[in-house]
């Protein structure tokens, strides 16, 4: 997982501050297309200067929600507030919101300059002001020398910048980005991600980004709203979503995970023990769970949080024995697929710390897995 550039900056967590006022409020928004419910009773608060990512598989409703924010779709019910003003029935051309389209939607019959100036001309600003703002913006996105070019004379990366410049030049209260990096090739994508964050910080605009790429969401966002079947299933910072998923869906959607189904055999406020049919030893977790004893729960353990060894551990909890079924060498790490005696296959990743190890674990070997009590996440749905 790429490290977030946000880690380097000072703490920015307005959502933890009870006095902070949300900048964008989505209140119980539902959108139906005929019988199909695209967005189902979504409520969200987004704060000023956030980069909020709507993440989900295609068809989960994230793009519809974005288009509702832009004003292209009217919610069937619910309201949208931006900076305290009800925007629900304001048409797109009167909203202080701009959008960067997935296709970039650059007007093919206008030069770069004319594209960027388009929005300002609609505001009927003075010619001089339009010119200076367009020039500033083009310099910011490093396109100053391309001002007179036509869109088809630009590369993909340059078009993306034109689209960004065009939507930012109007100084919107909210910038909506629909899969902003999907059309770029991989090399450019990472570079552009960081550039996007720099620009956002320079201008202090609030971003709402739609993406299906979890890595992109992790890198860009202050918070992620994970969507499934039109509903928001969890909202949190990238690390909250990854380390504290609130459901099996979330844990399995983000990264890879091993999920063990089991029952609560001991349920104390400070710890729980879970008995699993797939494991010889119970799973011990060092925090309580609010669930009835005997209830079915799932323990989710990330592949990098499991260790492998040849010796049988003498612990009573949190271990399992398995046979190596497959190994995939990825360079920086290796992925082991380990078959438990029950037949269930567990995925474990190990960093390749040494350049060559004499005594590497190999195919068909019997090994033992272990993890710490704080590693599993217990989810009840």
């Amino acid at each position, binding site marked *: 997982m790429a490290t977030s550039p946000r880690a380097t900056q000072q703490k920015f967590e307005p959502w933890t501050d009870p006095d902070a006022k949300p900048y964008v409020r989505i209140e119980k928004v539902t959108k139906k297309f005929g019988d199909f419910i695209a967005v189902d009773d979504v409520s969200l608060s987004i704060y000023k200067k956030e980069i909020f990512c709507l993440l989900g598989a295609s068809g989960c409703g994230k793009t519809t929600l974005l288009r509702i924010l*832009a*004003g*292209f779709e009217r919610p069937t019910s619910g309201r949208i507030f931006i900076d305290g003003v009800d925007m629900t029935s304001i*048409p*797109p*051309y*009167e909203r202080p*919101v*701009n*959008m960067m*389209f*997935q*296709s970039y*939607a650059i*007007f*093919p*019959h206008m030069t770069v300059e004319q594209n960027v100036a*388009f*929005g300002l001309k*609609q*505001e009927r600003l003075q010619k001089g002001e339009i010119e200076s703002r367009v020039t500033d913006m083009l310099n910011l996105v490093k396109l100053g020398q391309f001002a007179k070019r*036509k869109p*088809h*004379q*630009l*590369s*993909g*990366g*340059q078009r993306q910048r034109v689209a960004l410049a*065009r*939507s930012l030049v*109007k100084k919107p209260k909210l910038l909506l980005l629909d899969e902003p990096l999907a059309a770029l090739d991989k*090399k*450019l994508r990472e*570079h552009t991600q960081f550039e996007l964050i720099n620009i956002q910080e320079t201008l202090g605009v609030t971003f709402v980004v739609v993406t299906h790429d979890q890595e992109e969401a992790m890198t860009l966002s202050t918070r992620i709203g994970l969507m499934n079947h039109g509903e928001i299933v969890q909202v949190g910072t990238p690390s909250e979503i990854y380390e504290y998923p609130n459901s099996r869906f979330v844990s399995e959607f983000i990264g890879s995970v091993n999920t063990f189904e089991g029952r609560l055999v001991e349920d104390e406020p400070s710890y729980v023990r879970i008995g699993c049919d797939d494991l010889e030893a119970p799973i011990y977790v060092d925090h309580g769970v609010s669930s009835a004893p005997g209830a079915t729960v799932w323990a989710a353990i990330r592949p990098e949080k499991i260790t492998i060894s040849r010796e049988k551990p003498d612990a009573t909890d949190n271990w399992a024995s398995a046979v190596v079924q497959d190994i995939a060498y990825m360079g920086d790490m290796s992925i082991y697929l380990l078959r438990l005696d029950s037949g269930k296959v567990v995925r474990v990743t190990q960093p390749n710390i040494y350049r060559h190890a004499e005594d590497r674990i190999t195919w068909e070997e019997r090994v033992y897995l272990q993890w710490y009590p704080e590693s599993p996440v217990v989810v009840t749905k």
Partner: protein
Amino acid sequence: MNQGRNLFRTLVLILGFAFLYIPIVSLIVYSFNSSRLVTVWGGFSTKWYGALLQNDQILNAAFLSLKIAAISATLAVVLGTLAGLVLARFGPFKGRTLLSGLTTAPLVMPEVITGLSLLLLFVTMEQVIGWPAGRGMTTIVISHITLTMAFVTVVVQSRLSQMDDSLEEAAMDLGARPHKVFFLITLPIIAPALMSGWLLAFTLSLDDLVITSFVAGPGSSTLPMVIFSKVRLGVSPDINALATILVAIVAVGVAITGIMMARQQKQRERDAQMALAANQAMIESVKKG
């Protein structure tokens, strides 16, 4: 085996184009024949062109036809663009199916039916509201608009459905109201389609015989009506001369468009190369930075 297939392909194309073009070539060749018997070669002559230019009936008819074609093509483009816009952009609404049926039906409707029905409409309208008084240019123009707007609608609709509709949304998002979006974004982008729609409508109007014969009044004979009454009596060389002039006009028009298209193509290739180079430079800079 591959060669055999290529040979087959070439043969098909040669025969196909021979079938399409021999009649036209024969028209042209015999327009320069001095003999009145069209198929007997009596030596090279341009006398039929002279005869044509002195034939007031044909010249007047040609002038009337051009006038009708220009007016009806222009109005057909306006109406057809609106209909194409409604069908391609307004989504489902009550009565959309009927509209779409009404725009495609004239494409295939036998002309005798369209012609008869329009004439009966004009007669009835004259009885009921007194307009249009008699039949002539007005009724011909109305009929041609109705016929040709269907073709324009199809052209515009298919162009619009190819066009990325986020372009229009982007303009709206940047503050342009719907009518401004249409004039600043949609119209310039589909302009080439409108141009070809206009040319198509113009040609169809210029060429129409059957519908025109029904709705034309006495004294409003269009060019096809005059030609038809002449060729019904057999071949006549001045008609060959007229055909040659028409073919020449079309050929010149096509040549000009062809040259323009080739130029644009070259420009586009150059631009694509430029974009490719820009992309390369960007990747290089990313690598270094």
